[in-house]
């Protein structure tokens, strides 16, 4: 399941909705990404998340489908916020549920690595050094590449 939204999400409620009535789930992993007040030495007062409506949803669905092909997941969820955010606000939530922890952990890492390099979102930070577009991290490309070699 994927969602792109401006409003915040409630992690506990999302997990509960995903796992409700399912006694075949032994492991749930969540990843939450938050706005930090300092990045690369500059203080951040607010952040604006731009995206590509249409392609965003398609790309997230594609990434989620790929994770479900690679690992045995009982359920999965990706929520990504857009619009204006402040430090300590939630940005992204990934939830994976599986019978065993290995699948849930690997799938969550994979989802984040792919989301970071393929989902069309762009961050603009406002802060002590004025407004600036956040630059892509090389380490994110490398993190995504490791999934090409090993199947999981």
């Amino acid at each position, binding site marked *: 399941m994927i969602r792109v939204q401006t409003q915040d999400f409630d992690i506990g409620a999302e997990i509960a909705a995903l796992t409700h009535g399912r006694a075949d789930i032994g492991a749930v992993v969540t990843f939450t*990404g938050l706005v930090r007040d300092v990045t690369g030495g500059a203080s951040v007062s607010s952040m604006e*998340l*731009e*995206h*590509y409506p*249409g*392609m965003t949803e*398609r*790309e997230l669905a594609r990434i989620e489908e790929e994770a479900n092909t690679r690992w045995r997941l009982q359920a999965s969820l990706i929520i*990504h916020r857009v619009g204006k955010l402040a430090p300590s606000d939630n*940005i*992204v939530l990934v939830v994976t549920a599986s019978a065993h922890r290995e699948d849930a952990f690997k799938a969550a890492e994979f989802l*984040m690595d792919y*989301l*970071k*390099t*393929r*989902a*069309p*979102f*762009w*961050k*603009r930070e406002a802060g002590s050094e004025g407004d600036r*577009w*956040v*630059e*892509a991290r090389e380490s994110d490309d490398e993190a995504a590449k490791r999934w090409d070699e090993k199947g999981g």
Partner: protein
Amino acid sequence: MRILYFSWVRQKVGTAEEAVTLPTGIATVSALIDWLKSRGPGYEAAFENLKLIRAAIDQTHADLDASIAGADEIAFFPPVTGG
């Protein structure tokens, strides 16, 4: 054909979206970029460093040498930074 621009590519070009009618002979994303650059200094600035440019054809990631034949929507943007 619809062309979309995002992030600083959008800011440099000066518009988020435009409809263009391409001259014949423009077959790839690269060729489209060359043609766009001829349209003014904003485009030239946006596409100055192609290492920083990513493209999507009909909402799917595409290489710069990909064919644009039959495409309805081409988008240009910097490497993504969500998550």
